[in-house]
Structure formats: structure tokens, C-alpha cells
């Protein structure tokens, strides 16, 4: 594989933190704010100033209550959902807010590290849908950054780990199964990757919706608020948690949660939290690890059952998993580590650069010019039960390559619908069935070759979304669908 550039850039646009990774051929590095990643917090002031990153996060406590200030956290979770934020009386769309973070990262790279970051690879969660990918691309482009391709976050972590380990990555990891357990602020992504014939393949994946760090902070807030109401003899109506207090309160909950990763208990203090009948109340509590685990225990158990289902989907047992990478802030929760350790023992790796490994992996992918390829063959199940291959596994996943038009005929039009059944094939098994109903005429054929023809167009766009359009020959309107959950691999053959 030809190395196509001097410097590769990768951006991990995270729910909680965002990082730029850099690869110049040797070990990768991350552009940090001091020794920490940049918080994905945007602060708009009444006079139109925009502040992003640590300064914005640190200002949350002092300025969140000041009229005219707007703080936006976790904007990533709102991408693709058509949500907007009210800033100085004007609506601001999620891509507009997200672009402020991109602009900040690019500015920081230029000012502090003298790097002109114009294009590169951006990582996304496994369940990031087509609309969200599209808006993320818009946000990046708005800030002047061209997204060459998206790659899934856990996969970027595997790339970074493989290449940084012992220097001879592919040979060392050939034939191995690697589980990435990435539980960050916004999502839990579980990916089982395998290295087969020099190709890193995502064998199976799972997620847990938005039950992650931010959700845990809200759980702590609810517990703390409940305790406060009980101890102060106030009612929920007298001391509600309003929008401005909530941000500040959540910040304290998050700080307490981080301390509980190492300590058995933590203080949770929110000064001047409530004003009831002219009296000001502070929240002053002690939160123990047991308190926290009682809140998140159900989520941890669900996460573990997702781990089991991923391994089962790949037809493996926990013993077949050679390596487990634990990344993301929520993976530091002692209960999570305990559960994972019980299943996988010494094969668990607590990644040291857990905050930056995804960005660094993306930078490596960009540096090497690696492109995602289809992890599984994609085809159509036919009326006679056969698998009709459209794109073999390993097809480069980019527009122009993954593009096809096929003419079918409908063998049974009695319900007025041709059923296009798209399936993926891996290891001799067909999986992930997707059905598109295409309108056809109900008139029965009366000659031997007179069944209605159906034309199907398939194309994969630059946001890795498979777009399908099918139309019956007698119909004026066709049917279309978008599929955003195809699995991708990285072809690493020839990469040293």
C-alpha cells in the first residue's frame, strides 16, 4: 500500500471530548490541551463571543446562570435529529454548533502546534446513522475540514493498538480476535474485530443506545436531588432542578463520578443550588461507590449481556477472544472492570492512551491512505433461495466502486410488491436481512417471459450509506431506502 502523504490527521469528535490525532510515519500523537483532551463544550455569550473547550467547560459553573449565555454540551448526540439550540434569541442548528468545535480544533492545531489541518479521517460511533454522518460532514466542512472517510471509533482503536504494538502489527495480530469495549460519555460501542489475511474485519458489533457517561451523571443527579429534598424537607415543586442549575449540577456529578473510579467515596457539593422563600440552600453530600453502583448496576449488566451477544453472534466463546481493549471514560468504572476481568482475565488491556487512541488510530488510517472495504459480501436473496452477489467482501467502500444497476423480474406479483431482500454473507452464513418493497403491477403475466421487470440501483455514498432505489417497469413511482449499518473492514495488506 502506497503511503500517500507526509502527515495524516484523524479527528475523534466525541460527545464529551474531542481530539486531533497526528501521524507522521512513526508513533502517532494527539494534540491535547495541556495533557488533557478538549471538552466538547461550546459557550456562546450574549455579545456574540464563542468559546470552546476547557475554558468553556470551566466557565460552566460561573456563567451558566448569567442571562444571555448559552452552553452546549454533547452536541454530537443531537446530530442528525433536526435539533437546534437557542443562542441569543436565534436558533442555531446542531451542525453549526458542532462546526465551532471543529474550528476550535483546527485553530488549536495551527496556533499551538503549527499544523495546518485541512483534511483527514473522522471517527464515528457504530450506531451513528446516515443523517448524523451527513451533519457531521457538514459541520466539518463548515469549519474548513474535508472528511476523506469515516471509520468506526472502536475500529480506529484497534488500528492504533495494532500498529503501536511491537512494531510488526499485522504479522503479530493475524488470526486474532479483538474485542473493543468503548464506553464513553455518550455511547457504548462494542466491536469484535478480527485480523484475517491482513484484513481487519469487524465481525460483530453492538451498542447500548445512549446509556453512557452523561446518562450516569443524570442518574447521580436524580439520586442526589432526591436525597437533598428528603434531608431539607422540601418538595419537588419548591426546589426543582431548572435548566441552568442542571448544567452546573451535572458538572459536579461528573466530577464525583470520576473520583469514584479511584476512591470509595466522593463529596458532591453544589453551592447556592436552590432558593426557596428567600433562603438559599447548598447541596452538600457524600456519594459512595456503592451508591453509584446501585444506580448504574443495571446498565453494567446490560452492557455485559451485549458483550455476550456480540461474541455469540460471531459464533465464538469468550475463550476465543485474544484481546480486550477497554477504552472510554465509563470503562474506568470499577464495576465494569470487574465484570470484564471476570470474563476475559488477563487478556484485558487497560489502554494507557484511552482518551486519544481513537484519534491516533484515525490519523494512522489517513497516513497510510487506508480506505474502508466491505467486511462482508453484499447480495440479494433470490426467489429460488440462492444468494446473488452484488459486491464481494473487500470491495472498496467508496462512491463509484460500490455502484450497480441490476434488472430483475418479479416472480409473484399478486400482492403488488416486489420484495428485494438484501443480505450480507460472511463465513458461509447469510445475515442482516433488509427488505425493500417495490411496487409492481398486480396484473398477472400471460406470456412466458412477461413477468414485470424491476430495475434496482445501488450505490454507496461518501458517508458510507448504502442507497437503494427500485422501480417496476409498469410503475411511475419506485421505492427507495437507505442503509447505514453495513460493516466495514480495513485492507492492511502491504502495510508495514
Amino acid at each position, binding site marked *: 500500500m502506497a503511503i500517500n502523504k507526509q502527515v495524516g490527521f484523524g479527528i475523534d469528535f466525541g460527545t464529551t471530548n474531542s481530539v486531533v490525532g497526528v501521524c507522521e510515519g512513526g508513533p502517532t500523537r494527539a494534540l491535547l490541551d495541556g495533557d488533557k483532551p478538549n471538552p466538547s463544550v461550546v459557550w456562546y455569550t450574549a455579545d456574540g463571543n464563542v468559546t470552546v473547550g476547557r475554558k468553556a467547560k470551566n466557565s460552566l459553573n460561573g456563567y451558566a446562570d448569567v442571562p444571555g449565555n448559552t452552553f452546549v454540551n454533547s452536541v454530537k448526540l443531537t446530530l442528525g435529529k433536526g435539533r437546534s439550540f437557542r443562542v441569543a434569541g436565534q436558533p442555531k442548528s446542531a451542525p453549526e454548533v458542532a462546526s465551532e468545535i471543529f474550528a476550535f480544533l483546527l485553530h488549536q492545531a495551527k496556533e499551538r502546534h503549527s499544523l495546518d489541518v485541512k483534511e483527514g479521517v473522522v471517527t464515528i460511533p457504530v450506531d451513528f446513522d446516515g443523517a448524523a454522518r451527513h451533519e457531521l460532514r457538514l459541520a466539518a466542512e463548515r469549519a474548513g475540514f474535508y472528511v476523506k472517510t469515516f471509520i468506526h471509533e472502536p475500529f480506529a482503536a484497534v488500528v492504533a493498538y495494532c500498529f503501536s504494538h511491537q512494531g510488526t502489527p499485522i504479522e503479530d495480530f493475524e488470526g486474532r480476535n479483538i474485542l473493543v469495549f468503548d464506553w464513553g460519555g455518550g455511547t457504548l460501542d462494542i466491536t469484535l474485530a478480527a485480523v484475517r489475511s491482513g484484513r481487519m474485519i469487524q465481525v460483530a458489533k453492538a451498542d447500548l443506545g445512549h446509556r453512557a457517561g452523561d446518562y450516569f451523571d443524570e442518574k447521580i443527579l436524580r439520586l442526589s436531588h432526591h436525597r437533598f429534598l428528603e434531608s431539607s424537607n422540601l418538595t419537588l415543586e419548591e426546589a426543582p432542578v431548572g435548566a441552568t442549575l442542571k448544567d452546573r449540577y451535572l458538572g459536579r456529578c461528573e466530577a464525583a463520578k470520576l473520583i469514584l473510579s479511584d476512591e470509595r467515596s466522593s463529596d458532591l457539593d453544589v453551592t447556592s443550588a436552590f432558593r426557596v422563600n428567600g433562603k438559599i440552600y447548598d447541596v452538600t453530600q457524600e456519594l459512595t461507590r456503592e451508591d453509584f453502583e446501585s444506580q448504574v448496576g443495571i446498565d453494567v449488566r446490560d452492557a455485559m449481556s451485549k458483550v455476550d451477544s456480540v461474541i455469540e453472534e460471531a459464533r465464538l466463546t469468550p475463550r476465543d477472544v485474544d484481546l480486550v481493549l477497554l477504552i472510554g471514560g465509563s470503562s474506568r468504572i470499577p464495576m465494569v472492570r470487574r465484570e470484564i476481568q471476570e470474563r476475559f482475565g488477563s487478556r484485558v488491556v487497560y489502554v494507557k492512551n484511552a482518551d486519544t487512541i481513537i484519534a491516533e488510530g484515525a490519523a494512522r488510517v489517513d497516513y497510510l491512505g487506508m480506505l474502508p472495504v466491505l467486511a462482508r459480501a453484499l447480495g440479494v436473496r433470490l426467489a*429460488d433461495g440462492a444468494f446473488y452477489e452484488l459486491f464481494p467482501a473487500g470491495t472498496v467502500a467508496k462512491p463509484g466502486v460500490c455502484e450497480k444497476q441490476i434488472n430483475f423480474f418479479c416472480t409473484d406479483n399478486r400482492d403488488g410488491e*416486489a420484495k428485494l431482500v438484501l443480505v450480507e454473507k460472511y463465513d458461509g452464513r447469510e445475515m442482516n436481512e433488509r427488505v425493500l418493497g417495490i411496487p409492481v403491477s398486480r396484473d398477472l403475466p400471460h406470456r412466458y417471459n412477461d413477468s414485470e421487470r424491476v430495475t434496482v440501483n445501488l450505490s454507496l455514498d461518501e458517508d458510507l450509506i448504502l442507497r437503494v432505489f427500485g422501480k417496476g417497469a409498469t410503475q411511475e413511482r419506485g421505492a427507495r431506502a437507505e442503509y447505514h449499518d453495513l460493516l466495514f473492514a480495513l485492507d492492511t495488506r502491504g502495510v508495514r
Partner: protein
Amino acid sequence: MRSQLQIASNLMPDEPGNRPHYRFLPGDLAADIYRGFAGDFHPTPRQQREHLQYIRCFLCGRTCAGTCGKYPEVR
């Protein structure tokens, strides 16, 4: 819970090897169009099998495919 149902495809590639099209019609539909396979229509074994499954049983009155139990046991 995973569904045990599967939607059956009704598409075949319109290629020379798949002609004439009637060979891929379900047996009951083919019998419907070609009047119970009368004349010079030659159904495939699959169509014959499917046709039998949908034929109305003269004993129970349903499309029982011979499972109604009223049919005399053949020894």
C-alpha cells in the same frame, strides 16, 4: 426477541439463464395462470410440489397439503 419469520424474495435476475420466466413462478400462481398445468406447460418439480400444497383438499375442504388426517393412509 429474534423473529422466526422470513420474508421470501420474489425477484430473479433478468438474465438469459433465467428464461423463460414462468419457471420461477410459485407453483400455485403458475397453475393459476396456466390452468392447472394443462396443455404444453411443463412445471418444474418445485412448482409441482408447491401446487400440491395449495390445492384444495376434497376431504377437508382446506389447503391442508394432505395433513388433515382424513385422507386414507397409504400402505
